[in-house]
């Protein structure tokens, strides 16, 4: 039962007409129009939701994006493949390495380049580190939406540890560009694995603390259990992917379904729950955190020590790729993350189109989920879907 009671007498609420459209007469002074965002602590990134309220209950919600539109897809059409790489990663700040991976893989597939084994392991390591730092923000962030700020502060520190390792490996903290068409830019530095293991031990402790702080906390449970429940029948209807789909009983994980890089050599099982409310969606991400730490350990144990890390590529300033098209997907912390690339034989891509999980989660699904919710839960619902506006407007 939700913390906020829904009024059972629906006679005072707007009723849908024969076309299913709500009759909301704003001049009746029964309703309030309220914009949550674009500048609001309860909104994930630069987007806003136009809410229509009856009391404190939401009767209609519309997602508005475009506050961050930088026209990346258009810009990349005017840039060389190697320049497009630097632009494409900026499409999603929270986890830019998935962009690197899908962009490089599209270019390699269309140019017919096979990357060396060593590069596959390092790419997988980077993708898992990126997932870890993203989850270290979002898992405690779910508590933060209910005012449980201490977990967020712990998470920020833990994320910094991973960013330190990123800086050591790639030179960058947020944007890395360590992957490049043909492979990666180098091998792991000496002592990297040892320092990473020390960080992972800290994160292990953090994971246990978060379990205690959030999932055994009666206030968190009261606010999160039975709120914004996603019916399993919605998963295909709304294009739901990743942890949100896994919390509704669908074992959807690109790493298992269409294994890429070296994921078929790793031992892991995506965690699935059969009831998708805010609590369980967060719980699935908490289990993903454990899986990711385990996968980083597995990768570091199984990866070769040395080897060729980059395949031969033509001069990137004069690189023309034959006409073709492909779609490459990977599993980001939010779910399926794909890139559609079309080439026309020139030195620039004809078209690229990013498919991020938020495109469906933050528009069609969020608008549906918010109806009937309490206004105090809007931020929590958005974080439970892990919405990221830059993926929508690209």
């Amino acid at each position, binding site marked *: 039962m939700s913390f906020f009671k829904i009024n059972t007498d629906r006679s005072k609420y707007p009723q849908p007409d024969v076309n299913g459209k709500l009759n909301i007469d704003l001049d009746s002074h029964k309703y309030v129009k309220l914009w949550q965002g674009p500048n609001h602590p309860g909104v994930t990134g630069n987007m806003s939701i136009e809410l229509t309220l009856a009391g404190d209950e939401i009767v209609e919600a519309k997602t508005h*994006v*475009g506050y961050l*539109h930088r*026209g990346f*897809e*258009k*810009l990349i*059409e*005017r840039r060389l493949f190697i320049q497009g790489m630097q632009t494409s990663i900026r499409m999603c700040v929270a986890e830019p390495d998935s962009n690197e991976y899908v962009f490089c893989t599209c270019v390699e*597939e269309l140019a017919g380049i096979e990357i060396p084994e060593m590069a596959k392991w390092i790419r997988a390591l980077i993708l898992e580190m990126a997932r870890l730092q993203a989850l270290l923000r979002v898992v405690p962030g779910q508590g933060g939406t209910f005012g449980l700020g201490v977990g967020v502060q712990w998470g920020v520190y833990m994320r910094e540890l991973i960013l330190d390792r990123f800086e050591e490996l790639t030179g960058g903290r947020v944007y890395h560009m360590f992957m490049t068409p043909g492979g990666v830019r180098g091998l792991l530095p000496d002592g990297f694995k040892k320092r990473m293991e020390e960080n992972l031990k800290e994160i292990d402790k953090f994971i246990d603390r978060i379990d205690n702080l959030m999932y055994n906390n009666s206030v968190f449970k009261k606010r999160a259990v039975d709120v914004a429940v996603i019916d399993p029948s919605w998963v*295909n*209807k*709304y*294009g739901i*992917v990743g942890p949100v789909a896994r919390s509704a009983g*669908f074992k*959807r994980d690109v790493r298992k*379904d*269409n294994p890429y890089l070296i994921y078929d050599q790793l031992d892991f099982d995506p965690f699935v729950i059969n009831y998708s409310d805010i609590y369980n969606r967060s719980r699935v991400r908490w289990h993903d955190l454990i899986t990711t730490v385990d996968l980083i350990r597995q990768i570091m144990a199984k990866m070769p020590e040395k080897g060729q890390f980059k395949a031969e590529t033509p001069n990137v300033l004069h690189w023309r790729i034959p006409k*073709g*098209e*492909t*779609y490459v*997907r990977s599993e980001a912390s939010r779910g*399926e993350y*794909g890139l*559609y690339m*079309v080439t026309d034989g020139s030195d620039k891509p*004809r*078209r690229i*189109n990013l*498919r991020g999980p938020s*495109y*469906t989660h933050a*528009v*069609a*699904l969020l608008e*549906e989920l918010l109806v009937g919710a309490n206004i105090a839960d809007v931020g929590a619902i958005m974080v439970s879907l892990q919405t990221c506006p830059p993926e929508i*407007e690209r």
Partner: protein
Amino acid sequence: MKDLIEKLSKTFELKDVVFQRPDLSFVTVKKETVISLVTHLRDYEGFSHFVLLSCVDWIEDNLFQLTYFLNNPDQKYDLAIRCMIDRTEPTMTSAHHLWKQIATYQRELKEMYGIDFPGSPRLNENFILEGWDNIPPMRRDFDTKKYAEETFFPRERPKTNDPSKYMKSKLYPDE
């Protein structure tokens, strides 16, 4: 995947079949066939996950290419259905009744390419742009640089010098 394509060929007119990867194929169909093929794949072939609706502008042929990506989660493969539509007055049958997220894709394509999908919900509402009065910006003939130069004030840039000439003038003023 080949079995599926052969099976579909008996009912639908498929052209330009490309087996890109073992788990990804592309086919081209006529504009009128797309919705019936997509519906058939969803209802009878297990393609329950709609991945992406995208558009490519082939300005030299005066055509738009619409690509519908469908995924079969049980068989773990994707089928991309391409169709070519006229670029001058682009119109396509709406598929918003099949998957909920398609309405969003169609709204974006209307705004960015000017493709009309009659009947699609909230099609004419602003999606990303606001108060846009130029040609749809993702079309190939829209020049981003020219638009920026005409629309925004030119920025005053600080005076710069060629380093070698500047140093020469400082160090050897008489030469």
